[in-house]
Structure formats: structure tokens, C-alpha cells
């Protein structure tokens, strides 16, 4: 009973934090996940059309009621400016439907009634006599759908109702996800290869020099991502600093300047640079805590420098490698500005595709599904990591 007072206070004190986490993390994540499978727009905007289609099995044309309801609901949606919400999803199910829907919505009011709404609509656009058109509307009318996940996983629903892989040339996202994972892994390894000696140098230098070196690592850290990425463009492009230097030194002929940007090389270079501090800092903090006498002790016990490093130093830096590696990897998976700017076509990652679907194609359901898959992949890797290395052994500094 005595504990209850202070304890309640302590819990109360954490409430703002919990609220913050809820608002900034759980809520967006929940929205994201729901968007990937819940798409109520079509159902809300064309309720009567969908009701009239209920029971129609795709055989022949749907009943007149469906035509009549559509002829009423489409212009209404156009007037209420909600037509976009119908046209987008239906168009994704059947290419060209945006045009069919928007033109019909515009023309049906002025069109002459041809005795039945069926005839009237078909008169406006022959697409209305194809069952596929109506099937697309029917499918888009489902409030809950897994089609974004299917698309994100490069799967499709077969005519027989089963689920199978898409044809080779229309598989986009899974190869891209693999590419993203491989690039992230590559960037992580590069960061480790470059960051490890740097962190070691900083950790073992006298204070004055190590402070300077640390500053040199941190200054880019504090610099805008765009500035750093642009700096790489200046350095790496065909007429850039590095190429000009190579040509001036006669190493490469002017006609064969190296192509180091707008391809995978550009993505690798810029991302490694941008993410390097996230590797160096945890490594540095771990290395600084390793007494220099450990390597001396190993040598005095008869270990040559390689043995000493492998058996004594490296194992003690594992927590730092784990932390830095996980940090860089997870950040790399989500990067899209840097690949977008310097990656060219071949250097694009899954995040660029998510950005494309959020900003350009407005296919938020697919973007959400892709994000969810990415999230699951990261969580999966995290679990594997914690099983292998142990998350409690990870040290961020």
C-alpha cells in the first residue's frame, strides 16, 4: 500500500512518453498496416452499384440495376470530387478504367437516354459491355483485400482462384527487395571495412588527435544529407573532380572517363559515406573500453598480431560490430533520397518504389503493403540477429 503512491506517480510520469510513442509510432504504423489491406473508398462511393452487382457471377452482363446505379453514382462522385478515389483503385485492377470511369462520369449527364441505362452506358463507352469492366469494379469494391500484398510479393490470383507467381517480366518488387537487402548488406560490410580501422585509430590515438578525428567523422554527420549527396555528384560525375584528376594524371584517357555515379557504384559510394558514422561511433565506444594492455598481454602470451587480433581484440568488439551493423543495415534498407539522386536506374531500391507509390502513383495501399513487408523483413532480421548474437550484447555507446 505504501508503494502505491510513488509507484502511481512514476507511472503517471511516463504517461507523456507513452502518449508520444503512441502518437508518433504506434498510430502511424497501425494506419500504415490498415491501409495495406483495408480499402473502403469504392465501397463507400458506389454502394448501390456494388449492391446491384452482388450475386452477379461475371457471366454475361450485370443486371440493369447495376447500370442504373452507376449512371447515378458516377456523376455524383465527380461532383463531390471523390471520383479519383474510385478511378485509381479500379484502374489498377484493369488498365484503362480511369479513362472509362471519368469519361462516363462526365458524359452520362449529357447523354441521351437510350431506353435502358445499359444501352446508354454502352453507347458512351463500349467498355461497359465487357464483363471484365464490371468484375474490376466488383473486386475494387471489396473493403478488405490482400491484392496489395499479392502485388508486393509479385504474386497474382489465377483465373482458377489459386495464387501463383507473376510472369517473369512483371516481377518487380521481390527482385527489388532482394536487391535492397543485398545493397544494404554490401553497404554494411563496406562501412564495417572502412569504419573498423577508423574507429580503431580514433580509439587508440592520443586524446588531441582522437578528438580531431572524431570531429572529422562527426562533421559529415551534422551536415545535411542532401549536401553530402550532392558533394558526391560533384566528385564522381564524368567531368567531376576524381575523373578530371585521373585524366590530368594520365591514368584514364579523356574518352574513357569512369562512370561512378548514376549507377550502383554511385549508390554504394554515397550510402556508405552517409552511413559510415553510424558504424564508427558504436565501434569507437566499444574499442575505447578495451584496455590497450589486452593486445600487449596477448603478445606476451605468445600470440602473433593476427592471432591477438582474431582471438582477443575482435571478439571484444563484436558488440560494437553488431550494433553498428544493425544500425547501418536498417537505415540502409529505408534509404531513398541518396539512391534517388545518385543511383540512376540500376541503383534504385525498394524505398524508391514506396516513395513512387506514395507520391506519384498514389497507390498507397501498395506502398503500405511494401512497407509492411519491409518492416517484417527488418523484424525478422532483428530476431535472427538477437538469436545469433544476443541483443543484450549490443552496445551503442
Amino acid at each position: 500500500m505504501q508503494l502505491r503512491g510513488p509507484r502511481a506517480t512514476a507511472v503517471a510520469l511516463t504517461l507523456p512518453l507513452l502518449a508520444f510513442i503512441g502518437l508518433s509510432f504506434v498510430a502511424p504504423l497501425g494506419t500504415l498496416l490498415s491501409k495495406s489491406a483495408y480499402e473502403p473508398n469504392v465501397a463507400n462511393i458506389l454502394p448501390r452499384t456494388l449492391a446491384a452487382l452482388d450475386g452477379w457471377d461475371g457471366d454475361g452482363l450485370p443486371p440493369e440495376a447495376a447500370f442504373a446505379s452507376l449512371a447515378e453514382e458516377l456523376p455524383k462522385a465527380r461532383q463531390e470530387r471523390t471520383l479519383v478515389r474510385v478511378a485509381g483503385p479500379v484502374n489498377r485492377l484493369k488498365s484503362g478504367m480511369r479513362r472509362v470511369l471519368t469519361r462516363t462520369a462526365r458524359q452520362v449527364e449529357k447523354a441521351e437516354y437510350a431506353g435502358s441505362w445499359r444501352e446508354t452506358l454502352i453507347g458512351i463507352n463500349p467498355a461497359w459491355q465487357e464483363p471484365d469492366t464490371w468484375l474490376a469494379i466488383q473486386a475494387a469494391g471489396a473493403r478488405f483485400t490482400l491484392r496489395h500484398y499479392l502485388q508486393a510479393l509479385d504474386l497474382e490470383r489465377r483465373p482458377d482462384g489459386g495464387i501463383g507467381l507473376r510472369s517473369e517480366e512483371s516481377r518487380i518488387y521481390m527482385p527489388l527487395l532482394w536487391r535492397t537487402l543485398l545493397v544494404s548488406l554490401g553497404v554494411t560490410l563496406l562501412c564495417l571495412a572502412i569504419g573498423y580501422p577508423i574507429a580503431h585509430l580514433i580509439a587508440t590515438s592520443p586524446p588531441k588527435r582522437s578528438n580531431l578525428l572524431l570531429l572529422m567523422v562527426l562533421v559529415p554527420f551534422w551536415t545535411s544529407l542532401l549536401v553530402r549527396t550532392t558533394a558526391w555528384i560533384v566528385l564522381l560525375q564524368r567531368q567531376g573532380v576524381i575523373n578530371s584528376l585521373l585524366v590530368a594524371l594520365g591514368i584514364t584517357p579523356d574518352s574513357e572517363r569512369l562512370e561512378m555515379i548514376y549507377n550502383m557504384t554511385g549508390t554504394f559510394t554515397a550510402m556508405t559515406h552517409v552511413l559510415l558514422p553510424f558504424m564508427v561511433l558504436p565501434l569507437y565506444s566499444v574499442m575505447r573500453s578495451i584496455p590497450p594492455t589486452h593486445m600487449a598481454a596477448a603478445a606476451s602470451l605468445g600470440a602473433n598480431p593476427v592471432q591477438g587480433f582474431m582471438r582477443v581484440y575482435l571478439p571484444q568488439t563484436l558488440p560494437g560490430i553488431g550494433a553498428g551493423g544493425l544500425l547501418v543495415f536498417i537505415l540502409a534498407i529505408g534509404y531513398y533520397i541518396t539512391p534517388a539522386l545518385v543511383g540512376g536506374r540500376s541503383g534504385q531500391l525498394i524505398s524508391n518504389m514506396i516513395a513512387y507509390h506514395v507520391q506519384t502513383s498514389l497507390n498507397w495501399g501498395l506502398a503500405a503493403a511494401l512497407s509492411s513487408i519491409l518492416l517484417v523483413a527488418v523484424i525478422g532480421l532483428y530476431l535472427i540477429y538477437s538469436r545469433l548474437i544476443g541483443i543484450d550484447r549490443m552496445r551503442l555507446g
Partner: protein
Amino acid sequence: MNGDAPHIEYIGVRKRYDRSNWVVSDLDLSVERGEFLTLLGPSGSGKTTCLMMLAGFEAPSAGEIRIKGAPVDGLPPDKRGIGVVFQNYALFPHMTVGGNLAFPLEVRGMAATERRERVERALALVRMEGFGDRRPGQLSGGQQQRIAIARALVFEPDLVLMDEPLGALDRRLREELQYEIRRIQRQLGVTVVYVTHDQQEAMAMSDRVAVFRAGRIEQVAAPEVLYEEPQRAFVASFIGENNLLPGRILSINKGVCAVEVDGRQIEAAHIGGLPVGAEALVAIRPERVRITREAGQLANEHEAQVEDISFLGDHLRVRLSLCGTSNFIAKIPNIIGHGGILPGDTVQVGWAALDCRALDVESN
């Protein structure tokens, strides 16, 4: 390799890290097999650098170090086969105690069964049987140091270097381990070069002690010789306690000289060939000073004023005004009838001429 050569020889070894300061200069020193030699000196006196050069972690700037008569210049530390015990133990935290002990055996390619046997033996040597599966982080400081010692010995080196190994431990533990180290050293017959700044530790453990000061050795000798016959004023003041009185040599006669100190004449052993008229420091051990109330009973007798008395259990510490200093210390054993001296009393103090040494004033 020369069977008769000393185990270790420093020949004209010098070391500096920058252009101006010699950290170690003109070091000549040899260590016999099975000897326990301590390098003693204040911090920054170059003793640790000497040890590190011997271990191979530092290279001399000039001169040569020989082990068993063979120069070791350029031999990397892992090829020297020397056990080293570090101040902070330097146990590998990611390995168990057993793993730490097995490490030097593994890198030597020893078979697993023999390794286990040796590890067990080493644990037994430092009385840590059954701790093989623990992690260093689960051990106390004293236990860690025992393991560090065992690890330095497990591959059976005949030379072990210890760099202030007990510096981080409290006094009781330190004394206990001093005894342990000495026991193990005698039992195995290994040569030990030991670095410390603690003169009591040096005295208690060593066969010989080399006193370092500013990169040079002031004196190398057995502890009792250092104490009784310091050759230099620095040694006299660094080893034990000494009253040092500045004066001038008046005359010399058969190893005894007369020194004028603050208008008085004091007789002292004549050390180091100081000529008549030279400045000298007269060193007198506090415990060799006698105090009486009546005059005419003591050699080198002088009148002095009692300034202060501290009771320290086994002895009394008396501060006196004498020969121009008010900080002349005398230690009187706590035995019945010490005379009931009180602060402010005028007393007679005296000492045997041979308990008192006139040393070169030099660079003290």
C-alpha cells in the same frame, strides 16, 4: 647462447619518445637467473619503460638488451617467451578463466588434454582450483590478479615481468599477494623483474632493488644494503625515512668525516669520496637517534628542543629543533621508561657516527 651469461643484461640502454627528453638514459643492469629484482622509483622515473623494452613492447633508442647473452633487439614480444603481469590484470573478459589460461598454450599449438592438465596445475599454483569456468568479471580484484599471475606462468617461461601488479589492491590483499608471489617465484625458480613505486613492497619481496630516478639507476643493491648504506642522498630519503642535514666537510679520517652543520660539528661515515670543504648532506635514520635528559652520555651529542610528540603505538615520533631545522625526527621505541619527555623540553640527542652518513649533496 651463453650458459654463464646473466639472465638479463641492459647495456648502455637509452630511450626517448621525443627529441628533448631521455626517459631512460645510460642504463646498465644485469639480472641473474632465479633472481627477484625490483625496479623501484617514483612515477615517471623510467622503470616501466625499462620493463616494456625488456618485454619487447618498446625498442631502445640506443644500447642493447640481452637475454641469456643473446641480443633481443628486433625480436617481437610474442617470440620472447616472457610472462608479463600487468597492473590492470589484462584478463580477456570474453573468455573464461580457463580460456584465459589456455590461451598461451593454444597459440603454441598444445594438445587439448595437455592444455587442461597445465591449466589445472596453474590454477592450483595460485590456489584458484575450481574457478576455471568463471568469467574474469565474476572474480574479485585479488582473484583476478592470481589468475593473471597464473596465466603469465602457465606456459612455463623462465622470466616473468610484473608491472605494478598489486597497485590496484588494498593493503591487506597486497601483503598477502606479495607473499604468494614470492612463494611461487621461489617454488618455480623463475627470474622475476618487478616494477613498483612502493618501497615497502620492494623491500619485502626482492633479492635486489634498483632505485630509479629521472631515467637513471641511483643504486642497485639488496634491500638491507640500500637501507643501511645508501650511496646517494636520493636513495637515503626514498628508502625509509632519513633526517637530511646540509653541511660542509671539515676533515676526513679513516672513513669517518667531521661535518659542520649549522655551526655544530657532526661525525659521520664518509661516502663517495667527498673532499674536505665539499658540501654534504648528513643522513641520520630517525630510529637510530637516542634521546636523554642528561648530557655527556651519547656520541655525536647535541642539545635539542622537543617540538612535538606523536604516539604511534609501537613507537613515539618526536619532532625536534636541531641544527637549524625544526623538523628533525626521532623514533623512540615504546618501552617502559622512555623518559617522560614533553613538548618544550630541552633534551640531548645523539647517534653513533656510523649510523650517520655524509652524502654528496648533488642533485637532491
